[in-house]
């Protein structure tokens, strides 16, 4: 058996978390940074070693140490790989971002983050349904503590809301999982992916999973925990929340809902489309009127996640690939935006947009980075979000032109609130003496923002690096769902290129 790299990636941070608790504040910071960097290296190794075009599940590990009901089964496909890489990429940045802003109870903070990382990797690597559930739920505990201990003024309410909201959704999913394991006789995900559940049961199962993933995603109208959690969480907590935790919902849809219940997904596509359409427009409008920067970005996350759901349920390759890229791109960009907010919050200790202004004068580098990520979020071609959103819209148009039209409206609104936010923060006159005297970003903050900017640019210019590992997995999912794909209203017909060329030639000839 080869080296169990996935188990190492899960157990290493757990072990480090236990050691970190006993360290001093500074030692804990370095220990956490070292651990997360080591995991990042392991993640890169994983990416390098991943055989594109090879077997669907790679790095498979199987250890039946929990009796018969479930086992320690790990393994990843390209989708999981990319999400794991995203997690381990953001983690060291989170630790760096908390270097100075977290001053109380540092060892516990670092331990909570390391536990969080272990659970996130576990979610994406789990190949057993119940193991997935355990990791999925376990992540609530460290996040609850992160929001509750190190959060803002109204942190208690936010932490409860976050915990209970996600918990109730997941518990319903657990009952569905129990039923599925009984019906199929296994909890092994690759096997379940090929199992055909009875069509009449699929609707129930689909809704049970939907309850969990829609909350996690979050989709309108169960998104209300997100703005609270984001606003109250410390900066690094927001980054992880937006960067990785929200992706678990999308991952759940693509791993469970679509391939396991294809008929139900096709029949209930209107639920997803309806909720997503409302989300795109409504949350964008809500974002427009926010006076709190973090809240604004939080609402924009809900709108972006709606693109993911629209893309996933478009039932075609462009839609699904677009949704996956949006997930990755949003993980980078919204994480970076939260970091940008964190940078100025650390200096002025307020998130009120009105308290800023004119930052382009005294913080030019900061303004540059902020502009870069604002543009990425708006969907500027050449940056990460554009690729995903464009593909998702292409896919959506094929499925339903109305959905595509409304979603496009969301992009326009997105540009409106992001650019307006940027104008109010970076341009104009400073709101006060203190705002005008803020220092530009430090070397540490450079280290947090620059890597994300580089990755965003890379994904925007050459998305193939990220899409290549996922392509075969999308094919596998399409094989499951395409036979039942709902009929789209676009009625796209492939033109005949030869005929067109001839006509063109003829027209050309006549002119001469």
């Amino acid at each position: 058996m080869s080296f169990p790299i996935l188990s190492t990636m899960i157990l290493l941070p757990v072990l480090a978390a236990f050691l970190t608790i006993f360290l001093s504040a500074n030692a804990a910071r370095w220990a956490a940074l070292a651990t997360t960097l080591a995991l990042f290296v392991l993640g890169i190794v994983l990416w390098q070693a991943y055989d594109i075009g090879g077997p669907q599940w790679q790095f498979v590990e199987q250890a039946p140490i929990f009796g018969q009901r479930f086992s320690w089964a790990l393994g990843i496909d390209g989708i999981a790989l990319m999400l794991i890489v995203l997690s381990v990429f953001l983690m060291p940045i989170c630790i760096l971002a908390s270097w100075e802003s977290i001053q109380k109870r540092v060892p516990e903070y670092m331990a909570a983050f390391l536990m969080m990382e272990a659970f996130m990797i576990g979610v994406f690597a789990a190949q057993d349904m119940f193991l997935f559930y355990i990791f999925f739920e376990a992540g609530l505990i460290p996040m609850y503590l992160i929001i509750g201990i190190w959060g803002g003024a109204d942190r208690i309410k936010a932490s409860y809301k976050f915990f209970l909201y996600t918990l109730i959704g997941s518990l319903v999913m657990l009952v569905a999982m129990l039923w599925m394991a009984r019906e199929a006789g296994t909890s092994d995900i690759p096997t379940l992916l090929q199992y055909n559940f009875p069509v009449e049961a699929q609707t129930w199962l689909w809704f049970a999973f939907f309850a969990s993933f829609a909350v996690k995603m979050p989709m309108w109208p169960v998104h209300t925990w997100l703005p609270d959690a984001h606003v109250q969480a410390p900066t690094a907590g927001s980054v992880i929340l937006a960067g990785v935790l929200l992706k678990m919902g999308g991952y759940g849809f693509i791993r469970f809902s679509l391939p396991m219940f294809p008929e139900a997904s096709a029949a209930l596509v209107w639920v997803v489309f309806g909720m997503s359409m409302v989300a795109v427009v409504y949350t964008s409008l809500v974002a427009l009127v926010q006076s709190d920067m973090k809240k604004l970005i939080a609402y924009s996350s809900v709108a972006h996640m709606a693109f993911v759901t629209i893309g996933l349920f478009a039932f075609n390759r462009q839609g699904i690939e677009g949704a996956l890229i949006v997930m990755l791109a949003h993980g980078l960009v919204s994480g970076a935006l939260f970091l940008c907010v964190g940078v100025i919050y650390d200096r002025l200790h307020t998130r009120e947009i009105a308290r800023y202004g004119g930052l382009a004068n005294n913080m030019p580098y900061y303004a540059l980075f902020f502009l870069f990520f604002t543009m990425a979020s708006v969907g500027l071609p050449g940056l990460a979000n554009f690729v995903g959103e464009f593909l998702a819209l292409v896919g959506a148009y094929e499925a339903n032109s109305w959905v595509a039209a409304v979603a496009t409206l969301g992009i326009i609104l997105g540009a409106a609130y992001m650019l307006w936010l940027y104008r109010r923060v970076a341009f104009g006159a400073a709101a006060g003496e203190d705002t005008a005297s803020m220092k530009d970003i430090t070397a540490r903050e450079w280290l947090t923002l620059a890597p994300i900017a580089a990755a965003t640019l890379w994904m925007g210019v050459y998305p193939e690096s990220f899409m290549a590992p996922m392509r075969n997995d999308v094919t596998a999912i399409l094989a499951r769902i395409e036979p039942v794909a709902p009929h789209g209203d676009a009625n796209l017909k492939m033109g005949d290129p030869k005929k067109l060329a001839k006509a063109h030639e003829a027209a050309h000839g006549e002119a001469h």
Partner: protein
Amino acid sequence: MSIAASLLLTLPEIILSVSAIALMLVAAFAGDGATRFVNGAAVAALFAAFLSLGGEGVAFDGLYSADAFSDFVKPLIYLAAGVSILLSTRFFAAEDKLRAEYSVLILLATVGMGMMVSATNLLTLYVGLELQSLAAYVLASFMRKDQRSAEAGLKYFVLGALASGILLYGISLLYGFSGTTDYHGVATALADGVGMGELFGIVFVLAGLSFKIAAVPFHMWTPDVYEGAPTPVTTYFGSAPKVAAVALLVRVSIEAMGSAVTSWQQILIFTSLASIILGAVGAIGQTNIKRLLAYSSINNVGFVLVGLAAGTEAGVSATMTYMVIYVLMTLGSFACVLQMRAADGSHVEDIASLAGLSRRQPALAAAIAIFMFSLAGIPPLLGFWAKFVVFDAAVAAGLMPLAVIGIAASTIGAFYYLKIVKIMYFDEPAEAYHPVGSYVESGVIALTALAVSPLGYLAIPMLSAASAVAAKALF
């Protein structure tokens, strides 16, 4: 079967009875000064009883059965009783004074519990139950000068006597309509249709037993008794008698009424859901940690009954797994409660006094947090596994509505467990606790916390196998 063979099968109970009587004499003659010795001897007796387990067979012409089921449950009872004795010494030394009768009473109750678990006849059941209950009434009012303790004992006694009456009435009905008190005889009689009289018998028996396991709607005594009784006694109430009563209920339901599952399934589904919901809602407003844990125990009994309501072998196995994990969580959390002491050394039970505990005593706070998250059933703690197996059994038995409502209601429960964590971790520190180093308490806390931590998952194969064997013995 010869009388000698029967006696050999009941060896654990005989060892405990003889030790109890002998230690009572020691207590009478040597006085309270011998308490520490008596406690030690009682724990040794429990260990000896544990070693003497393992006989298989039916004793005294079908009054008593030693089988895999009793071999599974009894060690758990002995463990809980032993821990309750060990935890008592320091508590009583500080609060009241050491009294040698304490462990004698626990031993007597343990004999009763052994009989409850092994009873295969409605009368053995009743005698065992009464032996346990009478000892428990005395234990509840053990701190004679304490008003709350006396109140707890009185309440427990009055309501307990009422419940015993109801149970006995149910037994008499079952006996009257089936002509026998033997479990298998009753099962045979019920197999050819359940008449009105038999149905009443079943309902009354279940009502009486619901009182003993503190299931809604017969739970009213629990918060008062848990609060009033001295904490080591509450630890004991929350663990050993609960296990015994659940085991008894399981055996009666399966062995005596197993042929009429449909008659009692609905009753159990109702009590189960009512317990889960009331236990969860009732706990929210509590300010006393012992009352909160009392509601938590009501809530947990609801989940236990989910497994039993399935009425299948997997359900019984799940119920027993749940009880093991529940006992570990209970012992651990009450040992933590024992550590809550004001600056003058007296015990405090106010939840508010936990504020900011994570900064004053991080290890203790972490342990309580582990128990709370585990009781709430949040993975990766072992409490999740307990809920997992019972709901798995319910789903397998086709009880979908029960599973969905029960599991959704556990979110309500999660709220108040989270509240404790919130108070310990998010709030500003309150006055510091009196630091007391007690190896026994710390040891119990550390061991149970370790057991319900994710490491406990490694014990699952063993636990599932053992509980499956235990369940098989009943079918």
